[in-house]
């Protein structure tokens, strides 16, 4: 039986990908970000997952507002590196597991989560920054992946509760798979940030640290946040954090926190939490 062995909540700030590609890992203002992922890389190397389910949002790479799905799931053999406007990043294409994707899609749709199923999907910073920070990937990635894209950029967005319930449905779907797969799930995005208006650059460190506390110990409290609550306190683009609730909904409450970090150098609270299933 497939099972979820761990979950990771992480920001997916695009500038981290650029800094990585330019080899700036040791520069003083960047070093705290890259160092924070080293224990998580080590943990994942020991955990040896077969599949990573990555919950992210597409920022106009493979998806546009002509048809922008609320919930979508990748079901491709391979996910090429997308061009977001500045050329594809120099990363190897990311392998999928279409059998497992179709299994998840079937379980989720019959469980009343009506996913858009994508057989061609290029992946972008929302997906790639977490992956490239957490896994060695030269010459190839050590896990297969299932991208799950959520609309967090064009309101109306799904509610925080709905995202959490999607996570619960993902757990059921994983456990209904007869293949012996070890699965980790990523919830990505956030933390506090705003990228429009005169409030551009708004950060809320207190909100972010409270979110990191509660994602571990009291996720139900976070599901009660409305989009308005999150946007007022943490900035318009901080609503991405509802994707962390999908990750958390896919976990049990019998968890060990492996690692946690927070750093807010520029315009986004960069958070990280890694949770391992005890059973």
């Amino acid at each position, binding site marked *: 039986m497939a099972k979820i062995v761990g979950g990771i909540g992480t920001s997916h700030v695009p500038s981290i990908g650029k800094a990585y590609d330019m080899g700036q890992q040791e520069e003083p203002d960047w070093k705290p970000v890259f160092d924070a992922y080293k224990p998580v890389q080590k943990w994942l190397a020991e955990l040896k997952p077969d599949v990573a389910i990555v919950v992210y949002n597409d920022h106009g790479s493979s998806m546009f507002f002509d048809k922008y799905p609320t919930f979508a799931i990748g079901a491709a053999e391979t996910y090429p590196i997308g061009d977001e406007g500045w050329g594809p990043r120099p990363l190897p294409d990311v392998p999928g597991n279409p059998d497992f994707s179709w299994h998840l899609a079937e379980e989720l749709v019959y469980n009343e989560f009506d996913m858009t199923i994508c057989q061609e999907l290029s992946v972008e910073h929302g997906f790639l920054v977490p992956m490239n920070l957490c896994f060695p990937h030269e010459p190839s990635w050590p896990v297969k992946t299932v991208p799950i894209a959520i609309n967090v950029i064009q309101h109306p967005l799904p509610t925080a509760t709905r995202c959490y319930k999607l996570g619960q449905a993902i757990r059921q779907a994983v456990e209904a798979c007869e293949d012996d797969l070890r699965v980790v799930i990523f919830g990505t995005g956030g933390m506090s940030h*705003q990228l429009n208006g005169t409030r551009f650059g708004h950060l809320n460190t207190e909100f972010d640290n409270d979110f990191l506390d509660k994602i571990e110990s009291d996720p139900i409290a976070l599901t009660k946040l409305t989009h308005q609550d999150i946007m007022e306190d943490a900035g318009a683009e901080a609503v991405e954090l509802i994707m962390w609730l999908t990750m958390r909904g896919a976990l049990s409450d019998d968890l060990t926190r492996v690692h946690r970090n927070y750093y807010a150098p520029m315009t986004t609270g960069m958070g990280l939490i890694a949770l391992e299933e005890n059973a």
Partner: protein
Amino acid sequence: MATQRDKSKTIPGTTIFDGAESRKGYRINKFAMSFTKSENREAFTADEEAYMESWDLSDPERQFLRDRDYRGLIEECGGNIYMIMKLGTCTGHGLYHVGAQLRGQTFEEFMETRNASGAR
């Protein structure tokens, strides 16, 4: 059902990208999305006016583009920040340049408000 947005209560200095914005910004966002193809970036760089002419843009949209006025493109034309960012390879203006404009500051003034501006 909890109300997700209180539209009677605006958040100061904030534009929420919703249906109204997405409808208003459809043209400019579709134009910006075209920059995800290298041939379109090359066409814009070769001849901006001709490239803009090949899209159904309004006069104010064209003028904001000529002026590199990102505040105008975002706040007045319905531009989505993630789409407008795609112009950056051709214009040489990254997120923090755009952000400084939105705040009404110079790039240097904006950088002074950050915690560790080397991580840019």
